[in-house]
């Protein structure tokens, strides 16, 4: 393998890492687009198209005006009709220009029935979003009808088109997700029931679609409301009560279909995930005595010559020792070299001598390393004797034993997280730099020592390059001039 290919490999892996980071960036951007209200500055085609489809002729300024108007109307409505009605009104979620789907479903569902249930669900979601739902939702009802009667033709133009699209596209995914959740909770791997539920949902969606188009009565609305209310406990997993509630008809959720519902669902899932992680981390710290007892008993059944640990551990140990020994060697060489320099000249190096002393370059360390290496070698040979076909003792790719799940690091501000990640990357890049410089030194030192004073001038550019690579990390180059004056 040549030095060039080593560096080329490093470049390749950098580029691969860049690709991965790029993918992450894409993903996060898309997630954020789905979560946050404002579109990004670079509005992509899909979003613009969607906007065009849902609402063609309202400008942003007018949108704002309408939102303000809606809020004012909602307040007025509440004042006029009292709390009870306002609760019902709050069930009618927003026909905000960007998500008529929410309106369509919820207005059909929640208006018709169980106001209390819907109210519970609303209160469970984050308070602000509930408030905004209230504000926005009451307005359309105010606009269309002041009564609480469901209107299947409510905002038909917007609802219809988007509901169709949303149902057909989003249903399968969310239903699968929720069904899986339910199945897991029931403790059986009954995928069949899940599939049945999915197909039931699909048929229900089709009926809903046709109903929307024909403008049907609250009969359907009631059914849909039952569906949406049933599944609200499923998605609101933050409270234990909700967690334990079985879905009523076993039907998957409609709630996750709509955009705002998705956001809430996502948020609650993430919160749930955090909660579970905390519990897992707490459990990890507790020892499990039965486990080690079993292991000891099993080890007692192994033959006499059986080495301790495992081949994976030995591989890792050998790899580590080799690296450490290599570093130690280099350290020693450098220290010796610099020590001789300090003897010759009293420069600022003298001040750094203490640092050199504190480096573990003592003979004791070398002896310790040797002992451990001897032990490791014996283990390695023992494992090799018992190795079956296919077993591998090659250190490459060996990782230390980590029987724990990923640890959690908590941060408070974005700056903290950024600093942490930057440092991680900087440390890794620095390690790579040191590693490559070592490789270059190892490769070039024979050539250097061969450059003895003798006849013929060595290649100046070679000297320049070598100096630059070894002494300046390739960043700066020296000047080498011919001194033609006789001494």
């Amino acid at each position, binding site marked *: 393998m040549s030095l060039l290919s080593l560096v080329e490999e490093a470049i390749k892996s950098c580029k691969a890492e860049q690709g991965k980071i790029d993918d992450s960036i894409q993903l*996060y951007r898309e997630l954020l687009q789905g979560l946050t209200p404002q579109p990004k500055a670079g509005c992509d085609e899909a979003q613009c198209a969607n906007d065009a489809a849902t609402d063609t002729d309202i400008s942003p300024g007018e949108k704002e005006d309408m939102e303000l108007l809606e809020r004012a109307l909602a307040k007025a409505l509440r004042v006029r009709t009292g709390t009870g009605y306002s609760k019902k009104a709050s069930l009618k979620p927003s026909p905000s220009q960007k998500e008529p789907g929410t309106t369509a479903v919820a207005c059909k569902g929640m208006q018709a029935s169980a106001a209390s249930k819907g109210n519970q669900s609303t209160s469970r979601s984050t308070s602000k979003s509930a408030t905004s739902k209230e504000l926005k939702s009451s307005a359309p009802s105010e606009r269309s009808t002041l009564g609480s009667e469901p209107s299947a033709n409510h905002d038909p133009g917007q609802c219809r088109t988007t509901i169709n699209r949303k149902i057909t596209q989003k249903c399968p995914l969310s239903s699968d997700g929720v069904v899986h959740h339910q199945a897991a909770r029931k403790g059986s791997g009954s995928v069949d029931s899940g599939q049945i539920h999915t197909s039931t949902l699909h048929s229900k969606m089709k009926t809903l679609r046709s109903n929307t188009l024909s403008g049907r009565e609250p009969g359907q609305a009631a059914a849909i409301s039952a569906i949406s209310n049933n599944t609200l406990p499923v998605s609101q997993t933050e409270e234990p009560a909700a967690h334990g509630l079985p879905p009523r008809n076993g039907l998957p959720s409609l709630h996750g279909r709509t955009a705002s519902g998705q956001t809430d669902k996502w948020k609650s899932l*993430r919160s749930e995930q955090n909660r579970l992680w905390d519990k897992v981390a707490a459990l990890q710290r507790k020892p499990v005595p039965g486990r080690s007892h079993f292991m000891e008993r099993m080890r007692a059944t192994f033959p006499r010559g059986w080495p301790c640990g495992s081949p994976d551990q030995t591989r890792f140990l050998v790899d580590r020792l080799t690296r450490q020994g290599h570093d130690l060697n280099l350290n020693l060489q450098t220290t010796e070299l610099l020590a001789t320099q300090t003897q010759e000249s009293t420069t600022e190096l003298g001040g750094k001598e203490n640092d050199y002393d504190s480096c573990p370059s003592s003979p004791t360390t070398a002896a310790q390393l040797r002992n451990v290496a001897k032990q490791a070698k014996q283990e390695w040979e023992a494992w090799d004797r018992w190795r079956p076909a296919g077993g591998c003792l090659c250190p490459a790719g060996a990782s230390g034993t980590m029987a724990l799940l990923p640890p959690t690091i908590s941060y408070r501000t974005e700056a903290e997280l950024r600093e942490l990640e930057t440092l991680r990357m900087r440390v890794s890049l620095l390690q790579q730099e040191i590693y490559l410089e070592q490789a270059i030194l190892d490769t070039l030192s024979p050539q250097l020592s061969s450059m003895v004073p003798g006849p013929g001038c060595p290649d100046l550019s070679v000297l320049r390059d070598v100096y630059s690579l070894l002494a300046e990390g390739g960043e700066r180059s020296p000047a080498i001039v011919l001194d033609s004056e006789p001494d």
Partner: protein
Amino acid sequence: MRRRTAAVSVEVKQVIGALCRLLAAAGLEPVPPPDNFRRAKFDGGPEVVPVENRKLVEAGLWQTGYHADWMYGISGGRGGEEQERVCSRDLLLALGWLLATGKLEELLTWRVQRLDKTLLTPPPVNPQLPNKLQADSASLRKLHWLIGCLRCQGRTLLSMQEERTHLLHAVFFARIASSVPSSSSSDQSSAVLMEDCVCVQQLCDLLEAYLNWKRVEKVFWTWMDSVLDCHLTDAVIKKSTPDAPNGSARVCRHGNRGLGKLEEMLLRLPPGQKGQRRGRGDAEEGGGRRRSQGGSDTSCLPPLLSSLCCQPSLSQVYRARLQTGRPVRHSSQPAEGPGGGTETPDELPASQAAQLLLHTEALLLERRDRQRLANRTQLQEMIGRLDELVLIPP
């Protein structure tokens, strides 16, 4: 007594059920039903493992340090039919061993990384230094150029990383921020959100299954003890364990490279003398360089050696968590800021991790600079010896 036995067996069935659910949630398919496990305890009968799988199974189990008679078979048996048969109880014991050695956690970590896209993955690790590198003077120019290229890539990486962190923080923040739910609802972005919901749902299921399993784990180990008892009582009748198959010249396809490199390194070490103590330096060094988080279990290594060159770099995957700042629960760690810490003892605060990394960085920089200084002096000296050349350092 019968009732107690029945109660115990019901409990065991539930426990094994929890394990099966966990394995299924971790993506292992197909998982046999719990009854198969229980039957395996008593069913010492033959259950032949297909030949092509058997080698894999044996190699995999050996890799974790497991030994079983059936892995090494009756001597002289080369063909599949002459090998000792594997019964289901043997497989059950092997599974117990794998669970005990932490394979389950490894599997979970692997699965978690696939499900949760917001985990922070480590930067790539350097491969081991290959032995014989060649370079000639003609390629030095190209090498110089490549090194520059690499540096540029590194800078790009850093800036991309910053962008990613910024977005990741925004994602975490979006979880707790109560935003107005009038999202853009473009189909494309909602699809991504949906997909993430599905993944996070699966992750929650996985974590829950793991929690359920951990709660009842000790019952499982008690039961495995009983399985082992059954096995041992039967094993007395069997032949005694054969000794190591000596003298086999089978060599791993990588050869003895690892060991060879170790020996080479040892040759280059200075001849050390036992009993010499340097004193203060070593102890300080050992204390100053802490292990990386979740570091490996190298029980044979003395602390000094294990910390030597094993600076903490957090070179593992971890999950970041945004602290909301509300004092929800008491923390055993002292509050770090005026707002008070809400970190649990199981979490590492980012500031602490950053301190570790800064320390590591400082050490690495020092090491690099020292090396460069040594190189510089060496080269200056060497060029000085050459007549008619004057080196003017940059």
